[in-house]
């Protein structure tokens, strides 16, 4: 019979605690709109903050309560937007999927070094030392600050230049905000050809600093059949809304600084 006392004490405690907790959960009940949790489940759940809200929970709340459109989320792609729009009963709208591209090819063999950098592994810190160790003051510093903020492991460092794996990139824009040189841009994924240089130096200076810099020769501007390329402060820029992906500019560029990212996506 001795066993009954401990058994009843422990089970009595358990019962009392259980009842107390269920009572507390009734008293302190928080009403949650069930649509919020439904929308939250549909979102990618990466909590990258690309939408401008504090993670996916924040966006889900904004979609339900403030009527924000689901295309705010650049990560989920068209499927997620369609699913949420269907659920909320609003127009799907149109989104243009964007990917990040590093507009620089200044690898170790292409660009001269001003000095040996031996500091912290951070582009910001190298940038603070006379604008970095590269002779070209516009180019990629290659210390991987963008790689560290990428929530999707979509950035690799190759020969001192960041490269974006476009099939992994979701266009969240974290790297765009991080890069101290501002050479990562969000570009519509359908636009294959990009001028992969950010140097605003005059032609001769740019050529001296880097073997693959845009030297503002304007050959691409002349050869483009749809007038999609313009010179902006010694640098050719392709307007993705006019570009038809014909590829003439890539053939014309003497510096090989216009590349076709469509090929890269395939290999």
């Amino acid at each position, binding site marked *: 019979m001795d066993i009954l*006392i401990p058994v009843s*004490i*422990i089970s009595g405690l358990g019962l009392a*605690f259980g009842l107390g*907790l269920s009572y*507390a959960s009734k008293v*302190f009940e*928080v009403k949650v709109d069930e649509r919020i949790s439904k929308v939250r489940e549909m979102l990618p759940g990466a909590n990258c903050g690309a939408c401008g809200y504090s993670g996916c929970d924040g966006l889900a709340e904004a979609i339900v309560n403030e009527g924000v459109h689901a295309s705010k989320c650049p990560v989920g792609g068209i499927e997620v937007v369609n699913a949420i729009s269907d659920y909320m009963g609003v127009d799907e709208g149109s989104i243009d999927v964007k990917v990040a591209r590093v507009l620089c090819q200044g690898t170790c063999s292409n660009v001269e070094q001003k000095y040996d950098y031996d*500091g912290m592994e951070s582009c910001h810190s190298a940038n603070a030392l006379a604008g970095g160790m590269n002779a070209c003051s516009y180019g990629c510093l290659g210390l991987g600050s963008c790689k560290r903020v990428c929530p999707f492991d979509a950035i690799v460092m190759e020969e001192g230049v960041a490269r974006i794996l476009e099939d992994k990139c979701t266009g969240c824009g974290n790297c765009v905000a991080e890069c101290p040189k501002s050479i990562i841009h969000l570009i519509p994924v359908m636009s294959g050809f990009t001028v992969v240089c950010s140097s605003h130096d005059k032609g001769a200076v740019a050529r001296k600093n880097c073997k693959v810099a845009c030297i503002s020769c304007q050959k691409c501007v002349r050869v483009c059949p749809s007038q999609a390329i313009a010179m902006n402060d010694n640098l050719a820029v392709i307007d993705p809304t006019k570009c038809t992906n014909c590829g003439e500019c890539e053939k014309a560029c003497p510096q090989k600084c216009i590349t076709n990212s469509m090929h890269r996506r395939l290999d």
Partner: protein
Amino acid sequence: MKELFAILIGAMFVENFVLSKFLGICPFLGVSKKTSTAVGMSGAVVFVLVLSQAVTWLINEYLLKPYSLEYLQTIAFILTIATLVQFVETVLKKLMPALYKALGVYLPLITTNCAVLGSALIFVERDYTFVESVVFGFAAGLGFTLALILFSGVRERLETADIPESFKGMPITLIAASLVSVAFIGFAGLVLP
């Protein structure tokens, strides 16, 4: 009053729960990455510790001791702590949603924080009175806070340090933790526990 003060200083420095007794290492390593989360977590731990010390003391004194059921202490204490944490979570969700969000998953994890169970088992071992055990719990919580905030400062520095590849991440964290722990040996003998 003198004894209470001795308990307070003793539990905070001399037998610091994290750095001398090695209790509650999991949240110590898990939440010390940023000082802001470390402060939030410590606050929750102090709260739960004080509350659980009071409740477990009453249970031990009026339910377990009269029937000489001391062997049930561990299970009864765990039950109490789990309930308290759950209760704190429910209340926080309603009254302080901002703090609830900031604490996130670490709030339910306090249940398995062995510092909470450890301090409950220690007051039994030392035959503390009700007030003494509550003060002991409070001091243990303060000690936990001290260790967490100190160490989060160390870890924020480690973030930018140039560490050899093989030591990056957890290895250097453990080494740093052991060095901080060695520093706390300096308090030994300050007050007799």
